[in-house]
């Protein structure tokens, strides 16, 4: 699988990490479809019950979202409404885009700090989650801090070197 093939800038180790996470997300997505189908089939045939499917699917969906988030941000896949920005002069537009990246970085910084604190609190509390499997609650919060940190890094990279990543399409180009 080749993620981010449209980029013209040489890939750094950070980009490769983003791609690797996206690959994990893609594989998880395919596995999810197969897992749910298998669950339906085994239930219909009354063989090998898989009561853990629901819990595993829910956590996998969370992992898909968080593992894929840095890749989508790097590829400018997040929807932005550029009605105002598009009407600015090129210079002002550049300033606006840097302001957006600065704001994005600030938001991610706060999220990194608080995601770490939520993780630490959960670890210290020692709470357990009782689902099909029993596991420590802090496991759920492990992904958030590094992902928000990666998002922060992408925003900072764009702020420092505008044009590093794929450019916005100039229109709300993504949706369902």
């Amino acid at each position, binding site marked *: *699988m*080749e*993620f981010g093939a449209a980029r013209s800038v040489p890939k750094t180790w950070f980009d490769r990490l983003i791609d690797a996470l*996206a690959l994990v*997300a*893609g594989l998880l*997505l*395919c596995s*999810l*479809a*197969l*897992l*749910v*189908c298998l*669950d*339906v089939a085994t239930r*219909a045939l009354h063989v090998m019950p898989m009561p853990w499917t*629901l819990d595993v*699917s*829910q*956590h996998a*969906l*969370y992992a*898909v*979202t968080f593992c*894929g*988030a840095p*890749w*989508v941000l790097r*590829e400018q*896949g*997040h*929807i*932005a*409404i550029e*009605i*105002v*920005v598009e009407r600015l002069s090129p210079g002002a537009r550049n300033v*606006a*885009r840097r*302001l*957006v990246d600065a*704001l*994005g970085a600030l*938001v991610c910084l*706060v*999220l990194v700090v*608080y995601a770490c604190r*939520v993780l630490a609190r959960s670890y210290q509390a020692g709470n357990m989650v009782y689902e099909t499997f029993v596991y420590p609650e802090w496991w*759920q*919060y492990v*992904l*958030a801090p590094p992902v928000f940190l990666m998002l922060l890094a992408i925003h900072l990279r764009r702020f420092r070197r505008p044009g590093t990543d794929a450019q916005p*399409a100039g*229109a*709300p*180009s*993504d*949706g*369902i």
Partner: protein
Amino acid sequence: MAWYLTLLILLGTLVAFMAIGLPVVFAFFATNLIGAFAFMGGEAGIFQLVRNAVDSVQNFALLPIPLFILMGEIMFYTGVAARAIDAIDKLIARVPGRLSLVAIVGGTIFSALSGSTIANTAMLSSTLLPEMYKRGYHSSVSIGPIVAVGGLAMLIPPSALAVLLGSVARIPISELLIASIIPALIMAVLFFGYVVLRCWRSPELAPPYDVTALSWRERLTPFVKYVLPLMSLFVVVVGSIIGGIATPTESAALGALGSVVAAAAYRRLTWHSLVTSVTQTLRFTVMTLFIICGSVTFSQIMAFTQASTGLAELVTGSGLSAMTVTMGMLGILLFLGCFMDQVSMMMITAPLFMPVAQKFGLDTVWFGVLMLMCLEIGLATPPFGLLLFVAKGAAPDTSMGEIIASVLPFILLAVSVVALLLVFPQLTLFLPRFIMR
């Protein structure tokens, strides 16, 4: 602080962040960070926001979103859908606006196989637009119907956005999916009738051309071979929900697997097409679900500060009728549709509109379908309707003004269907009540 000030501050901040071009997900995160800190107990509010972000997508009910999209992407990138369109093309004989009618029929059928409006529009554009231009079709009967029918994928199950709306607005997803079928078909029939009428009255819009004479057998065989088997996927997805055999999530998984099997059976499945389909699905899925992560606290702040209930009580106490209020809410959605994407619209309006709808005793399934239809219309409303840009990508030589002009009559038709459903809720509720009782 008074609830209306809270509401104004939150909405104002969100709109301001979006207006400067901050990606929607970060605009939600930023607004919610401010809102959570200010109105939900300082740091405790931010802790809650982070927990919400993590918990929000750990939801089995959201799983049909990627699976429904995957269905459409596989059909599109493997070329199976294009072959089905080709089969429909052979089936429809020499009639006024033939290719436009192929687009409407094909688009409606593909909507029943795909949860992605973009895949639907892109597939119709890439397969039919070049031929339409070659035959001298005017944009009003080429781009117009393609964009209009492309949006039907949002209404006809499998619909990823219907699942999202059901999940966000707490509307039974199965009922919402089934209730959207008849309104979507009414819309398709109206589009069909409009094109026939226009091409009949102004034949120069779609110059007639000689269609290769085919026997009935030659015309029917491709349909039976390439369209009917695909329709069985729709039967699997919708039938398993109706029959109570599978939940929407399970039916979506069966549909996704079925589309892969269908592509393989037609010998169209390649590693490249599969990877492209998964990549596109991942892109849309992460974008959508991450917005949910960012926006879920928005509705909590609204509830916590009494903004949503305050608004609901204000509207109910205003003496306005349920019909007026419903029209007002739908009008807001249509207005927002000109500037905003569908997921953001849902995340902003659902927490505000649903309490109002419940206070007025509106049927949530009916209201949900009306919301979906307005969101669907928003895909084609200028200046920022998403499908307008998909069409522009497929027809770069056509000006945006011409594209918009070609779509406007179809938007009016769609709005008239919304009005029809407002007056006759039974049109929406008949099918789910008949099936689910």
